[in-house]
């Protein structure tokens, strides 16, 4: 598949270390400009937090990076693929978890992860590694996800991304519905994912938590980037 081709140097930006490059990106939902001209550069292997009030455009940035939306104006390059042109080569290198987890309630945790792994041809080894990385115990593997807690479901969904060896993880409000322990565990796992080379972008209301964990904080206000903090 075309996604296997070697990444070509991004001449406009001089380097291939950028996972995401948005330039003056405008995205319209209905008649409403959810993004009103966003400029953003995200380096590979970093943990990025998108912060901002409701309606600031956090979800839209993530969906744009997932190739689910196209920029109406401006440009969006994700993993050196122009999203406006054809997001197809981007697919299966990017994992997106919206407010939902994309799990099948009547399948077990293992069956769900195995299914998502098999969509890209990943094998049993990848699945086992992902289950271990997301700290899904042997006891949980064979439980139908219908019976799992919100935090456990979130970890199963993340294991699906890990098993697919996604390069870019896009997580929309991953902390929602989790208790404090589960949030701490999730943060630890996301940090580990970024340290292992994945680029992780997440959105959150929880400003303090995001500040504490990310390499690159992005504040969005009214569909634009108002402030960036890099470590």
């Amino acid at each position, binding site marked *: *598949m075309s*996604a*296997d081709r070697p990444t070509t140097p991004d001449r406009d930006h001089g380097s291939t270390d950028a996972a995401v490059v948005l330039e003056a990106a405008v995205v319209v939902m209905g008649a409403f400009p959810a993004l009103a001209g966003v400029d953003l550069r995200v380096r590979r292997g970093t943990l990025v937090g998108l912060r901002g009030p409701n309606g600031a455009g956090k979800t839209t940035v993530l969906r744009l990076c*997932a*190739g*689910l*939306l196209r920029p109406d104006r401006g440009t969006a390059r994700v993993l050196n693929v122009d999203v406006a042109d054809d997001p*197809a080569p*981007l*697919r*299966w290198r*990017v*994992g*997106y*978890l*919206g*407010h*939902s*987890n*994309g*799990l*099948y*309630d*009547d*399948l077990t945790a293992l*069956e769900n992860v195995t*299914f*998502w792994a*098999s*969509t*890209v*041809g*990943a*094998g049993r080894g*990848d699945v086992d590694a992902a289950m271990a990385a997301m700290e899904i115990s042997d006891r949980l593997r064979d439980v*139908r996800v219908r019976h799992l807690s919100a935090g456990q479901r979130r970890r199963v969904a993340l294991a699906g991304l890990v098993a*697919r*060896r996604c390069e870019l993880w896009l997580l929309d409000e991953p902390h929602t519905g989790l208790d404090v322990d589960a949030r701490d565990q999730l943060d630890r796992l996301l940090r580990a994912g970024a340290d292992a080379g994945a680029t992780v972008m997440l959105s959150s209301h929880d400003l303090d938590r995001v500040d504490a964990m990310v390499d690159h904080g992005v504040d969005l206000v009214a569909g634009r980037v108002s402030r960036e903090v890099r470590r």
Partner: protein
Amino acid sequence: MSTPPGVVATARMIAARDLRIEWRARVVMNQVIPFAAVTMVLFAFAVDDTGALGRLAPGLVWLTVMFSLLLCAQRAFAIESADGALEALRVAGVDPVGIFLGKAAALAVQLLALAAVMVLAALILYDLDPPAGGVVLLVTSAICATCALAATGTIYAGLAAGVSGRETLLPLLVVPVVSPVLIGATRAVEAALGTGGTAVADGWPWVGLLAVVAVASAVVGALTFGSAIRD
């Protein structure tokens, strides 16, 4: 590096997953089949004439299967949209042709089982005396008819998945399009059961019609399904 599976492998994977979910949740078995069976009983109240009921039996069987198709197709996509899995499949770049073929195949298997139960119910409830030579015709026509129904149902249920008002829209879209299936399947089963006063051999032209409709719906579905489910 793992390679993504081809169309056939994807279809097999999706079909296996859908059938596994049905095996666990038993929605078709425990809800749709009883509904269909009670519909067959109600037809007897509506017609109130054993002789007429026998003559009408093939049509009643396929009307019931068509109503059940609406429920099963709805259900097939309810499991996809319950936790955002359809969107995740799209992000993951899973081949829409594979999704279509897999879901249609799983739906066809369920409908075939349902049709078998309905034929059996008709034999018992409506006191039929089928000729011995009709079994091959019966089975072949049922396979072709359920494939055609499943393909059409999958196109439109996929198109309407996640849209508000889909419950009422789906019947409006599906019923006129499956009318050739209803005509063909009814006449073929009539010949197979000997209820229409026709010989078994007269049923085979109808199987030809059903096969053409099945192939046409599968081809149109494979070509258009990607457009139907995309955001």
